[in-house]
């Protein structure tokens, strides 16, 4: 195994919000970089390499890290760009981990961002399937009724997520009220996180249930906002962490992995064989990551989770697929209060992705929030008060097919 690697700092550009017409992409990134540096004694010259990423079709700038390199101090330094859709942020962070674990670099900064007010997110998302959609027109789809194409595409603007949600509810024998309930919890958690976008203190199930249904069982209240924001994290080797005198307030990377299956619910031109609600790839990857982290029973050994949920039913589904609850048990755990910040296994104390979604940043925010929880530095009342030994962070992307998982902990794995 590689060298031990620690996250020593997590920086944000500020609160995630819908629109930042006052600044451009480099100006969005720079404050996050400065914020991460300011929480340490490090200066830009101490950073050996940068790993960066966003989803550049959302803003219409190809490889914007070239343009932004001066603003994140990357000029004159090694810079690598990673992009994997929704998992981009976590994939960037994982690449930063390998930069250090390989022994090639000692201090590496990972940066993820999205400035969604500069583009049309729907165009960006449609861009995933557009070539497939174009090709369908060559095979004579039904264009006479509005159901023809919609029937093939499915679920309107929620896309395949509505299928996944329905499938999940059937498996868990749960109802839409459970999705409402978890959505409300996330929005009220977000109110305790000064960086979160949609903050609704005391948000209730009824508040969410009052929003219109888009495609049953998903409502507006179950979907994520489009946010502008950036996150930067600093990763260092064990030797450097010791040298900097930073071994108390750090989060050690204990296990990590990324996996892929095939394009699901949306693979219109070739039969899709993967069940999007079963998430076999998530289970496979979780097993691998836990084994690397020395975690035998995730339910006992992990004290907090940050999962990537673009739609609220996923706040129920992912913890199960990550092995934190038995399959179908998440709604019951939610009702028992296990999910809450003061619960037995808090899920998304940050408010999660349904409260804040700057796509290229989101999967790294999960890792960053998990790190802050381990370090005990989560601000504004969303710090979990129970003792945290290990935290798990998760991301998903593509057409429900990519997954990234990381376990962070208070003590490094013994080599």
């Amino acid at each position, binding site marked *: 195994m590689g060298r031990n690697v620690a996250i020593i700092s997590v920086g944000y550009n500020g609160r995630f919000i819908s629109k930042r*017409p*006052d*600044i451009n992409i480099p100006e969005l990134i720079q404050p996050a970089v400065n914020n991460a540096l300011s929480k340490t004694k490090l200066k830009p010259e101490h950073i050996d390499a940068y790993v960066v990423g966003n989803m550049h*079709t959302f803003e*219409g700038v190809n490889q914007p890290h070239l343009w932004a390199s001066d603003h994140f101090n990357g000029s004159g330094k090694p810079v690598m760009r990673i992009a994997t859709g929704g998992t981009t942020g976590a994939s960037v962070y994982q690449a930063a981990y390998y930069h250090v674990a390989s022994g090639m670099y000692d201090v590496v900064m990972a940066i993820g961002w999205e400035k969604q007010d500069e*583009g049309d997110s729907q*165009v960006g998302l449609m*861009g995933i399937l*557009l*070539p*497939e959609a*174009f*090709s*369908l027109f*060559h*095979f*004579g*789809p*039904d*264009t*006479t009724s509005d*159901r*023809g194409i*919609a*029937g*093939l*595409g*499915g*679920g*309107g*603007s*929620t896309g395949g997520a*509505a*299928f*996944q*949600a*329905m*499938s999940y509810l*059937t498996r868990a024998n749960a109802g839409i009220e459970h999705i409402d309930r978890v959505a409300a919890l996330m929005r009220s958690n977000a109110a305790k996180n000064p960086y979160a976008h949609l903050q609704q203190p005391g948000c209730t199930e009824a508040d969410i249930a009052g929003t*219109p*249904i*888009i*495609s*049953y*069982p*998903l409502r*507006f209240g179950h979907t994520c906002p489009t946010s502008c924001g950036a996150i930067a994290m600093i990763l260092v080797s064990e030797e450097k962490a010791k040298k900097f005198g930073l071994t108390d307030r750090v989060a050690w990377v204990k296990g990590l992995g990324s996996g892929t299956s*095939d394009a699901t*619910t949306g693979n*219109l*031109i*070739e*039969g*899709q*064989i993967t*069940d*999007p*609600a079963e998430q076999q790839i998530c289970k496979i990857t979780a097993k691998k990551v836990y084994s690397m982290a020395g975690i035998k029973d995730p339910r006992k050994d992990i004290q907090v989770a940050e999962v990537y949920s673009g739609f609220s039913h996923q706040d129920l589904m992912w913890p199960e697929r990550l092995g934190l609850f038995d399959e179908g048990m998440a709604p019951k755990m939610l009702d028992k209060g296990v999910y809450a910040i003061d619960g037995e296994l808090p899920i998304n104390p940050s408010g999660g992705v349904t409260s804040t979604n700057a796509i290229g940043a989101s999967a790294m925010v999960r890792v960053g929030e998990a790190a802050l929880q381990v370090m005990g530095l989560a601000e504004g009342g969303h710090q979990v008060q129970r003792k945290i030994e290990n935290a798990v962070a998760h991301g998903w992307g593509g057409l429900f097919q990519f997954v990234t998982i990381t376990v962070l902990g208070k003590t490094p794995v013994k080599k």
Partner: protein
Amino acid sequence: MTEETRIIESTWDLTAYQFKIEADALNLFVKGLKDKKILGRKCRVCGTVYVPGPTYCRKCLVDIDQVVEVSQEGRLDAFTVSLADVRGKPVENPFISCTVKLDGTDSFLMGVLEGWTDWRSVKEGMRVKVVFKDVTQGALADLSHFQLI
């Protein structure tokens, strides 16, 4: 916004691309539809049946040359009820999009579900069958919908 900041209009022009797409799977599929058959491909190694059937197996990374006709009945898998348009305006006639696993296949087929009166009574696992248009012409539109049995 400050005086120094201006918004600049720009585009990402997807029409500037000429995509080449593999047509094998859909070619076979629509050919079958013309004869009111559902055709797919089966991997000789692992036995996975894909509909529409690509010419390679995702699990085994081998070519698939075996064309199979599959059952026109199957199991309702996931579904969603479209109650509003993209702007949130309620639609007059809600409809159900669904994925169906036809008997003997391993992949999900997408389409519109008919044969229900109250969408609340529709459940995953119900039996469905393929309904073709009366006159088929070798197009995706030939598969009209899935009907609850």
